[in-house]
């Protein structure tokens, strides 16, 4: 098991960090979060063309960079630290991962290169309006189209989706949707499949939701007999989707670590700047001990996220358990760090002008996205092999 990054990985992190520092100052974040698209096309083009980030973990034969899950997590940690506004988590961590894990060879060849190049924005829609993150919970249905024995292969893969997905990250701008839906009449994980369809296709109504975290755009998508293509095997998502979501949970944990680290640094900076009672507030144990605890929690959550990323890359048997461990740990840590950062800032920390709330809101949306800490703690214990 890998417990440090290689020199190459450390160097890669620095390159990504420099890019983020340059492209995602808070002035940019504040500008972009007020737009509907929520990202800067020029920056997206640059991070795609110069750094190849959208294809970071996509194999080279499908047009990607051919790095692994660990490198994806490095990118996400840096993006989380810089709170980059871009449709990256949706396209790369969610949609590309789903296609890599579930798609046929032909589908990967057809779909992945454009995601890797940044030309296609994609996302994964798997949660219904109930907001239930359990794999088997979806009620969106997929009816086969032209389902007779004479049908050609492409027709056999043709379906129509009916129902509503919600909490779809960047769902309002995605060119390509990967959707979890079920064969009518089935329940639970059985009968689940993944489908792809163009975001602007027939029978699709998309609505940008008013998200608490304006840097993470969420959409509600209604499917009214929307034509879709089966991704991978029919009724196969009961097997593939849990793993895809475990990978997504680790990706989100990594992103959260970056944000939590930023909250710690911001707290330390302020504590060593702000004077009260004739001395720096950072010289009071009340503040120092808070910072020591934040540091402890951030480092523990970091270790968990790094371990989970390595477990994903090495496909270890404990991966499903540690994926949930890393998500629960990172979510709680980020939320706590953001809260304490506001507390250490005092009144100014509650103002719109201060940047802390941007991270606080990201922490809040990350806390529940993909399942809250209670859900993942439970998954961890149930999955734990003692």
């Amino acid at each position, binding site marked *: 098991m890998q417990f440090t990054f290689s020199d190459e990985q450390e160097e890669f992190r620095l390159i990504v960090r420099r890019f983020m520092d340059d492209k995602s100052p808070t002035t940019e974040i504040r500008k972009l979060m007020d737009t509907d698209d929520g990202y800067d096309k020029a920056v997206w083009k640059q991070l795609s063309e110069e750094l190849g980030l959208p294809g970071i973990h996509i194999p080279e034969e499908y047009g990607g960079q051919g790095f692994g899950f660990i490198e994806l997590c490095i990118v996400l940690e840096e993006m989380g630290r810089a709170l980059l506004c871009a449709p990256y988590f949706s396209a790369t961590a969610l949609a590309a991962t789903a296609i890599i894990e579930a798609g046929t060879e032909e589908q990967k060849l057809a779909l992945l290169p454009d995601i890797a190049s940044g030309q296609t924005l994609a996302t994964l829609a798997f949660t219904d309006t109930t907001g239930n993150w359990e794999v088997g919970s979806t009620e969106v249905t997929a009816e086969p189209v032209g389902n007779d024995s004479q049908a050609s292969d492409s027709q056999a893969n043709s379906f129509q989706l009916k129902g509503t997905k919600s909490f779809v990250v960047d769902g309002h701008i995605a060119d390509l949707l990967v959707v979890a839906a079920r064969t009518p009449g089935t329940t639970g994980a059985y009968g689940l499949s993944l489908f792809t369809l163009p975001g602007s296709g027939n029978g699709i109504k998309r609505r940008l939701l008013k998200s608490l975290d304006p840097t993470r755009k969420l959409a509600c998508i209604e499917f009214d007999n929307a034509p879709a293509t089966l991704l991978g095997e029919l009724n196969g998502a009961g097997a593939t989707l849990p793993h895809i979501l475990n990978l997504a949970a680790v990706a989100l944990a990594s992103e959260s670590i970056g944000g939590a680290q930023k909250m710690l640094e911001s707290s330390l900076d302020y504590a060593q700047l702000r004077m009260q009672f004739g001395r720096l507030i950072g010289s009071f144990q009340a503040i120092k001990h808070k910072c020591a605890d934040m540091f402890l929690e951030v*480092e523990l959550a970091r270790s968990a996220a790094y371990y989970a990323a390595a477990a994903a890359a090495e496909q270890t048997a404990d991966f499903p358990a540690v994926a949930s461990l890393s998500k629960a740990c990172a979510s709680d840590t980020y939320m706590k760090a953001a809260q304490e950062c506001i507390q250490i800032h005092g009144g100014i920390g509650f103002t719109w002008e201060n940047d802390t709330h941007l991270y606080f809101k990201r922490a809040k949306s990350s806390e529940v996205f993909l399942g809250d800490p209670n859900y993942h703690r439970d998954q961890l214990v149930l999955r734990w092999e003692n």
Partner: protein
Amino acid sequence: MTDTNTVTSSEQEIRSEVRTWLEQNWDPDSTLLAWRNKLIDSGWGVPAWPKDWHGRGLTIGLGDAVDDELRQAGAVSVAKTGVRMLAAATILEHGTDMHKEKFLRQLLTGEDTWCQLFSEPGSGSDLAGLTTRADFDGENWIFNGQKVWTTSAHHAQYGMLLARSNWDVPKHQGMTYFLIDMEQPGVEVRPLRQMNGHASFNEIFFTDAKVAPEFMVNKEGVGWKVAMTTLAHERRLADGIRSWGRGDKGNGRVYEEQKAEIATVMEPYKWYPQRAGRVDLLIERAKATGKFDDPTVRQAIGKVLIMAKAAEWTGRRVKAAHALGRPPGAEGSLGKLAGSQVARLAAQAHTLIAGADAMLTNDDGAMDGLISEILISVPAESIAGGTDEIQRNIISERGLGMPKEPRTDVDRPFRDVPRNTVG
């Protein structure tokens, strides 16, 4: 990554040299004392010590390789853990040749046991505030005062004693370090009973106890600096206890004698695993009691597992970075603080699992009292070896570079510093 295992040629040579020596000399039927004297004479007992003093001047890494060979051969080692090794490290660094001559060998053979006389009832976290008096009467140093939390004192021959010899200088400059003979009329040792019923430590009362001037370590007034050497080795000692407590397995007189020695030394530590929370028992216990079906119990277990595993992985990150020669970050100082939290969370989870049985102890309690021992031992974890609050000071000041709290006790004569009236 990166568990690279580079075996240097010199390590190979040393390993084979040790192996050959062991083949010719290791005798499980000899007495423990005879065997250890032989091992000490060979220099393989403490190979990282200087050549003049029972060692071979090897690096710590090569010393570990030698220990590994001993282990593989099933050969019993010198008595190299326990408080005696703190004394050894201190004597090696600050002691005179007479000290080294008189103490080191008997310490390694296990004939002499040592204790550390630092903490006092009036100075716990603030060790430099100690008030045990050292007064020179023209012939001997005379000691009066009280020490506490002293392991092994009831069977120790010698003690490392930190006492105040000058009250008119700032606190850190007025202390002197002595090696004291514990077997004398002015030293009274009483066991100290803890809230969990065990008595792992002692209180020591000095009433005109004596030390001859040649058993002062280093110079008068530099006791604090000498004590820092002792304390620097304390963490390593804690690691050593864990591995040493198991002892060597085999048949023969030497093993029997070692077993008896370990039983004596380990006696004070037998509740330590419970103090750390026994995370290992949680899932098994929850399943055995049917509480595993309770989602609130699973939440409690989940919280412990997350903290415990993340702390373990943090430790491995630190080690891996160290192995690559990368500079240590502040994360190295986090382990103790994490351990306290793991212990508390684990005790909480064990309570939920035990239910009403958590009100019972001994053979009426769950697992014959083991669970209740966890519940009433865990409070030690966040105090012993530096409280959580002191750890947070260390982490925030040394790790995060935050400013120190202004102090009023360091820049004036100790005589004028407000202090406890007890002790």
